[in-house]
């Protein structure tokens, strides 16, 4: 294989796709990105409805370095739960690498390619393939562990039963969050699996092309799958159809996933980093001073909340560590820091993210009260201000100043 041929060692995107199919795909990409951006705008508008926080950016600037180290090292997530922390790191780096991979293809195909600049071939392409294969494998294994953890290990802190509501209360049951958790897991794992089977089918389909077949072991997982499928008698003719079907499954799942990030638990990808960035390191030891001459003090409506707190409420992934650490919750008091923060989030979503139809408040205005999306005074009075929740929260939620 001469030097010039290395250009051939690459992957032809949309190979054998009719032009209309490519156009449809790009149409879908644009729609997905548009839906994503609208979601992001809605969230930012929600946070902007909160109170400006003078020293918000001061703490943010101070904490950029700390945030980067915390996110990359996952130290906050690993504390007191090494397994979950480590596995989440696998999923995190898997997802990040896959995202970078897709971005690289976009850079090559949509941006530099038209100007004739090619880099996605040869040694670079092969290493690229290897890295993404391993990233994908890490992602899937991580997700499998998380599924096992949720369905079989079942740590008590993942139980969504609420201590601050009686079973007869309309909003006692928060099981609907479980549906969102599982949808998130299944969507991501299916994207991973369809990606691999798709590339395995492609290898069988192009087994006669040495530039593809001879280098298949650079994508080891795909190569193994190809070997299995071949063993099962999958020929090139069927493989090409399988490849097309899986391509579209993979594509639609991925685009849907991206589009729905701002509307689902997936938004913690952004909000968790944002929340940690704006978290006040002195949240426990120094409460924000209240201005006594103002017309009002303390929070009664959701728009009284500081913007950082609304952002933090959206960062919560219900990991249950605060729920488990809270002494009031552990001894039967009607308080769980997790459920209190989720109530703040639900209240904010109901008040500040108006339905598509129009603006306007649906439901009670005050965050305090015995209604379904309200925080009860018995809950707030059960708190010991001991700070265990805020101290262990891996995404930087400041429950204590929100409560006080």
């Amino acid at each position: 294989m001469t030097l010039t041929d290395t250009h051939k060692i690459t992957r032809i995107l949309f190979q054998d796709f009719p032009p209309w199919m490519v156009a449809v795909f790009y149409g879908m990409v644009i729609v997905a990105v548009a839906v994503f951006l609208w979601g992001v705008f809605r969230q930012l508008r929600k946070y902007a409805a909160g109170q400006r926080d003078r020293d918000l950016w001061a703490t943010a600037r101070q904490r950029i370095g700390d945030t980067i180290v915390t996110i990359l090292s996952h130290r906050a997530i690993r504390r007191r739960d090494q397994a979950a922390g480590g596995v989440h790191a696998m999923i995190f780096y898997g997802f990040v690498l896959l995202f970078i991979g897709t971005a690289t293809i976009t850079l090559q195909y949509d941006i530099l390619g038209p100007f004739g600049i090619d880099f996605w071939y040869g040694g670079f392409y092969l290493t690229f393939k290897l890295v993404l294969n391993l990233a994908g494998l890490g992602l899937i294994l991580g997700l499998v562990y998380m599924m096992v953890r949720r369905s079989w290990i079942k740590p008590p802190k993942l139980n969504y039963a609420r201590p601050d509501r009686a079973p007869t209360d309309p909003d006692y049951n928060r099981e609907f969050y479980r549906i969102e958790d599982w949808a998130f897991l299944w969507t991501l794992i299916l994207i991973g699996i369809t990606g691999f089977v798709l590339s395995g089918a492609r290898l069988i389909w192009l087994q006669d092309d040495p530039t593809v077949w001879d280098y298949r072991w650079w994508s080891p997982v795909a190569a193994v799958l190809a070997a299995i499928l071949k063993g099962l008698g999958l020929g090139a003719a069927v493989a090409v159809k399988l490849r097309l079907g899986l391509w579209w499954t993979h594509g639609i799942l991925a685009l849907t996933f991206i589009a729905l990030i701002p509307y689902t638990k997936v938004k913690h990808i952004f909000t968790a980093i944002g929340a940690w960035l704006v978290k006040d390191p002195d949240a426990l030891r120094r409460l924000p001073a209240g201005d006594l001459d103002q017309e009002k003090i303390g929070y009664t409506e959701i728009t009284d909340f500081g913007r950082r707190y609304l952002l933090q409420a959206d960062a919560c992934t219900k990991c249950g560590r605060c729920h488990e650490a809270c002494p009031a919750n552990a001894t039967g008091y009607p308080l769980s820091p997790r459920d209190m923060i989720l109530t703040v989030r639900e209240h904010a979503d109901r008040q500040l993210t108006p339905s598509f139809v129009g603006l306007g408040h649906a439901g009670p205005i005050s965050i305090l009260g015995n209604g379904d999306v309200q925080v009860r005074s018995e809950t707030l009075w059960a708190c010991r201000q001991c700070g265990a929740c805020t101290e262990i929260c891996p995404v930087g939620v400041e429950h204590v100043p929100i409560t006080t």
Partner: protein
Amino acid sequence: MKILVPVKRTASLDDEFEMRDDGRDVDADFCEYDINEFDEFSVEEAIKIKEAAAEGAVEVVVVTVGSEDADEVLRKCLAKGADRGIRVWDDAMEGSDQIAIARILAKVIEREQPELVLTGAQSSDHGFAQTGIALAGLLGWPHGAVVSFLDYTPGSASLSFRRELEGGLEQQASIALPAVLTIQLGINRPRYASLRGIRQASAKPVEELTHGDLGLGDDQVGEAGSLSHVRRMYVPERGRSEMIEGTPAQQASRILQIIREVRG
């Protein structure tokens, strides 16, 4: 419709205190001052009536007879929801007894013309239990003492109430307005006045009057206007119980010994 609530700034003593030079009261340095405990309940009852009525239908006015230091008590009531405060004071009022104070309050009431006057049943420092009913006597108004329950809808010409008598018995009665009622502890649960609320309440109006403004002569206030005169106030020689000393165990066994002696 207006409810007027006289309030008093009462003193409480540390267990180590000294008398004033003239021996007729305790030296003020040894006193800690706060609103009379009974008045917390009468103010709360007035504000509850106001809050139950339509917006602005009921005005709650709090009145006190006392020097500048008494403003703090008025501000606390204003922070809880009273609308207006009146403080009556000048040097001639020094030494007024409860009847002289009732006479001053009666003049304020004639000025304000409220439909209902709620006072505390007694004060937590002297426990005279005089001012409220003396006020009614001077005004010639109907009155009820030691009220433990009150049912009143603003605008009606009468109201029904219950009086708490000895042994827990209660008497139900109704009374024509305008009337004076003295309020017993436990009729409601007084709300808390936050310090911020008290600070901001200082913006609400507090009218200051002298006995001249009320058309009272010098001989109607102060010691001249009083029906009793303090000869002396003293710390009594107390009978002291026989103190049982020793460790808790020894004290307990001595108690058991007494029980056996008495009960046989």
